[in-house]
């Protein structure tokens, strides 16, 4: 895997150049030559985040993908990995490259984008930039599960501390629960400190078939299970307290990876924490904790890096930044590196497409 950016701003490189750097790094690491050895390229991005309609137009060259089978998946990068997995499993490709990038710093109208992602008649008039929606979900989640605000602030403290060891963090910090809770309230009970702030990055992953991977890599990381799932585009039809999308995606992945007890299956998990309470909600949806139990576990320190169930040892989105469609691939990168470094055997990576969506992807990794 290769990457570039991971900074609040990246003025020295255009998005093409950022992609070129990340791709070069990924190809060098995998020992492949993109012009002759890659069968398919998958890019994950959304038009209006790029400020370009039909963004796949601008993808091929800097990946080595000109006049090759290349496509855009309008999804999180982790879903791109899943599509690549299927291409390989179908026999149509042996090596697939998955790319996603974001230059949030170039988007000056971020709030408008949130509004544009909602129904103009029923939703936009009230949910505006998305913050009220997050607040409504957060309140309902806390209400149904008796979750305290302290436990949510503790997620921020934990992840921002974890991020201090991660060179790709833009927002890591040493904070106390009190400091986190003193942050400005956006829409009650949502505070600014609970929301991951935007950053720029590009991540490129190289996937290969079993036999190919064996021949090009001494220490491949395997995909043992994949799942993806969406709840509803209608905000009003969603269960605000449960992340059904993550539940559905994980069930699919666990079935494939033959995991019966997810709470004991992983050495660590990288889950979406782009809004602090979502980490708790996602952990429960993924079956890592029972419903309503993630907050307690967090307060007890179980989810710390040295706890019994390390959650987001990378620092998560709260440290690294909100990377939009690149979030999932960025977390895959963290898990990929940590699996190799620490001699772990299995990890879970989950992404969520962010406000106002209800779509998740899950990948189970093993070595």
């Amino acid at each position, binding site marked *: 895997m290769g990457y570039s950016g991971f900074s609040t701003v*990246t*003025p*020295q*490189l*255009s*998005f*093409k*150049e*950022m992609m*070129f750097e990340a791709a070069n790094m990924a190809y060098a690491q995998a020992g492949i*030559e*993109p*012009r002759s050895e890659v069968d398919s390229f998958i890019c994950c991005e959304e038009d*209006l985040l790029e*400020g370009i309609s039909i963004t796949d137009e601008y993808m*091929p*060259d*800097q990946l*080595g993908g*000109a006049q090759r089978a290349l496509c855009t998946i309008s999804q999180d990068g982790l879903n791109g990995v899943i599509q690549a997995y299927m291409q390989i499993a179908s026999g149509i490709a042996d090596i697939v490259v998955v790319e996603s990038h974001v*230059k949030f*710093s*170039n*988007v*000056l*109208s971020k709030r*408008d*984008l949130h*509004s*544009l992602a909602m129904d*103009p*008649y029923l939703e*936009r008039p009230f949910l505006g930039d998305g913050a009220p929606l997050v607040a409504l979900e957060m309140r309902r989640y806390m209400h149904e599960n008796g979750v305290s605000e302290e436990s949510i602030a503790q997620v921020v403290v934990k992840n921002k501390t974890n991020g201090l060891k991660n060179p790709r963090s833009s927002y890591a910090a040493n904070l106390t629960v009190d400091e986190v809770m003193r942050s400005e309230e956006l829409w009650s009970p949502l505070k600014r400190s609970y929301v991951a702030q935007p950053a720029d990055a590009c991540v490129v992953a190289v996937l290969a078939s079993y036999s190919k991977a064996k021949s090009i890599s001494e220490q491949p990381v395997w995909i043992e299970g994949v799942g993806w799932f969406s709840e509803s585009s209608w905000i009003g039809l969603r269960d605000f307290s449960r992340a059904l999308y993550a539940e559905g995606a994980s069930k699919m992945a666990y079935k494939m990876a033959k995991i019966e007890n997810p709470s004991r299956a992983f050495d660590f998990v990288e889950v979406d924490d782009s809004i602090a309470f979502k980490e708790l909600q996602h952990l429960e949806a993924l079956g890592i904790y029972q419903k309503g139990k993630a907050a307690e576990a967090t307060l007890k320190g179980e989810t710390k890096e040295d706890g019994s169930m390390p959650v987001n040892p990378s620092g998560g989105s709260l440290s690294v930044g909100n990377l939009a469609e690149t979030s999932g691939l960025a977390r895959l990168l963290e898990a990929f590196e940590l699996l190799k470094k620490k001699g772990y055997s299995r990890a879970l990576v989950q992404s969520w497409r962010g406000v106002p969506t209800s779509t998740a992807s899950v990948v189970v990794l093993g070595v």
Partner: protein
Amino acid sequence: MGRLDAGWHGCNNGEVKRLKFAGTPISPEEWRNESVFFKKEEFDLKYAWDTGYAIAKFLEGLKAGKILGVKCNRCERILVPPRMFCEKCFRKVDEWVTLRDTGTVNTFSVSYVNNDASRREKPLVVAVIEIHGASPGMGILHVLGEVEPSRVRVGMQVKAVWKPENERVGAITDIAYFKPIEVM
């Protein structure tokens, strides 16, 4: 505006199978008179794109009245617009080359419309112009001026007409247009 069950689809295959093509067209009158409720919204999405290394330098060149290209020493192509990488060889390009500000019309069109499909007052001649000094076929998109639309030909030699230096800002429009080299 009733919902249409338009066009029953005749299928054979031994069984009677009729397919419904659903849909409720809005007539031009209904659209204009707004006899149904429409939600109207306006957005103005603002961006500040990082131009990056290659394009920033290209724009600086334009400001200085020069068209810059890049060269890949592996395939030996000279490329314009410039890029940091050669897409054919997948490697960094090697050097900058100052190209001429003349070119050959590869193809052209006479446009009678604006980008919102409204009619232009005066037709505009647009062309892909292969820039001299770059490898054959290396064109850029621009507009032509000082020429009757009916006289433009593929293969025509053209030269950049630059804006005055103090009006140049480092943009593709620093070249006001290309004009034919020979008097037509």
